[in-house]
């Protein structure tokens, strides 16, 4: 299995292709875009990390792909979201439900509250197998027990009928992972799955996810604000800021050459044990609120390198060198002819 998967990963088979995804929310009668024309692809057995600070649209992007944005005050538009040969944008609720939990599943941030407190955990893991795979009770229970063992719940058989309150946070997150894995989805959307856990447990969950990814050949979109996690787990990284992907690159390239000023600043804010620092670097200011997004580059107000043009024109993703897969949305650093652009902006 592993061999085969490796071979497949070499090829360019794309399991998810999102093109120009825009998600808007209505606030006080006006529509505001929380995610703006985001495009990315995810290959088989690849981990794409979505990185950014709170409110930058990471989770909204994931929820939009799954069609979980509430329709009464939210709106998802996209040129296409290709998954497994189908375009998810035009699917009915019924068709989307078949994909959720089955083709694409999600792991949530809060293991303490993401399990139903009144149902035994074994039941909750078996439930999606009964629902999607039409298994009978004994088949589903057996498969659920295998899953709980796969996510390394100690003495899973005897804990099968226990309730979530009898589990610790890390154990609950393992149960959540078992639930997400139940139907062998092609993609797992992990929305900050380790944020609510303490550091030693984080490491265990991350290595578990890495192992499962290797064994099952699934792809993963990993949402986090923790760049340490990114370095450990991701194959490719998309840095988001205020609803835009501002930089996308494979993980080595990004850490070797962080190009967008925001990415650079994020990396500088990581405390490092090999440097003697009295104060921790932090990025001044905060993400502008969704109802008052500035014109031009949304990071310009917090950027040391900002030029007048940055406040007027919105940069698009652009390869840092001709032909490079490392792309960045920045007028100053993005490999643009800055003089020509400024001239055009003035004209």
């Amino acid at each position, binding site marked *: 299995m592993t061999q085969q998967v490796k071979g497949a990963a070499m090829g360019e088979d794309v399991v998810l292709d999102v093109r120009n995804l825009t998600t808007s929310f209505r606030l006080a009668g006006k529509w505001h875009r929380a995610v703006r024309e985001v495009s990315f692809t995810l290959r088989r057995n690849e981990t794409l990390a979505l990185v950014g600070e709170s409110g930058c649209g990471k989770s909204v992007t994931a929820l939009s792909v*799954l069609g*979980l944005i509430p329709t*009464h005050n939210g709106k998802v538009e996209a040129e296409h979201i290709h998954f497994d040969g189908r375009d998810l944008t035009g699917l009915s609720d019924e068709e*989307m*439900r*078949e*994909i*959720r*939990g*089955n083709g694409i*599943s*999600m792991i*949530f941030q*809060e293991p303490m*509250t*993401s*399990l*139903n*407190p*009144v*149902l*035994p955990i074994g039941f909750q893991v078996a*439930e*999606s197998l009964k*629902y*999607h795979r039409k298994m009978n009770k004994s088949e589903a229970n057996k498969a659920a027990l295998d899953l709980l063992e796969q996510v390394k719940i*100690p003495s899973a058989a005897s*804990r099968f*009928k*226990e*309730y979530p*309150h*009898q*589990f*610790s946070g*890390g*154990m*609950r997150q393992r149960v*959540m992972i078992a*639930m*997400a894995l139940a139907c062998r989805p092609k993609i797992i959307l992990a929305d900050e799955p380790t944020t609510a856990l*303490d550091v*030693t*447990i984080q490491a*265990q969950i991350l290595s578990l996810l890495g192992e499962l990814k290797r064994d099952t050949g699934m792809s993963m979109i990993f949402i986090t604000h923790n760049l340490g996690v990114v370095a450990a787990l991701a194959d490719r990284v998309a840095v988001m800021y205020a609803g835009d992907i501002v930089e996308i690159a494979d993980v080595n390239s990004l850490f070797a050459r962080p190009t967008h000023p925001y990415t650079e600043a994020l990396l500088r804010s990581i405390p490092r044990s090999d440097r003697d620092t009295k104060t921790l670097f932090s990025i001044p200011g905060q993400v502008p609120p969704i109802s008052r997004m500035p014109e031009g580059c949304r990071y310009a107000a917090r950027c040391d390198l900002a030029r007048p043009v940055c406040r007027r024109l919105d940069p698009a993703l652009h390869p840092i060198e001709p032909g490079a897969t490392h792309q960045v949305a920045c007028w100053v650093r993005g490999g643009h002819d800055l003089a020509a652009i400024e001239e055009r902006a003035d004209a």
Partner: protein
Amino acid sequence: MTSDAGGLPRAQASRSLFLDQMLRAFSSNKLSWLGAAIFIIVVLMAVFAPLLSVHDPLAQNILNRLEGPSAQFWMGTDAYGRDIYARLLFGARISLIIGVVSIVSAMIIGSAIGIIAGYYGGKIDVVIMQIMDMLLSFPALILGLMIVAMLGPSMENLIVAIALTAIPPFARIARAPTIVVKERDFIEACRALGYNDLRIMLLHVLPNVLSEILVMGSLWLATAIRVEASLSFIGLGVKPPTPTWGGMIREGFENILDNPWLSVFPGLAILLVVFSLNLLGDGLRDAIDPKTRVE
């Protein structure tokens, strides 16, 4: 691994949280045990009524009319010479059946309505709850009176009438916790697993709001028995000669000054059952009170 495996099972390893709460409440509140005991005894007496009385509740004997309590007729006889004790036992059957059937159906229908309203929210919620509020604005007795007056007095119509009056309160009691529960993360997780709304409501919302509904059920069972008695008392209940507690009070009422036991015994029976159900309900309510609930 050490800290991760720290979630050792608590004392009662695989018992449901719900059951735990109920038992804890019962053990902390002695009166709820008393209520449960009284109610169970009454139910058993109703079930085994033919074994517990030597007389036929319908057999008239004009020679023994209006006799006081004696060794032969423990609670005396009524104007037709029928044994009050036997009628009380058989009357318990009718009163309990009417109460339980009407409240269980109201519980099912009302909870369904309330959960649907709370879960979907928006216009559906507004329309449903407006209708419920409209029904709720009538006192249970008046609404029951109207319905029985329209449909005619019979046991089935009495059940329909009581059930209809009890649906709105159950809808309300189910809706409120549903609104809280549907915002919780595990419902979002259910959606992310692709479950449809019906499954989420039945398997994930309902068990989380069930305790509230059950408490309400025990309190409303007492109300149903009272309403049945009231409607029977004013002659809109089950037709004579079938004994019901309310009907017996009304029959005895005609001779209440000379032969008070005719009304006193069925009155005491109603009092006892309503009292026991209220004790039970209070105990259950303590059990689900968030202040006494242990996370």
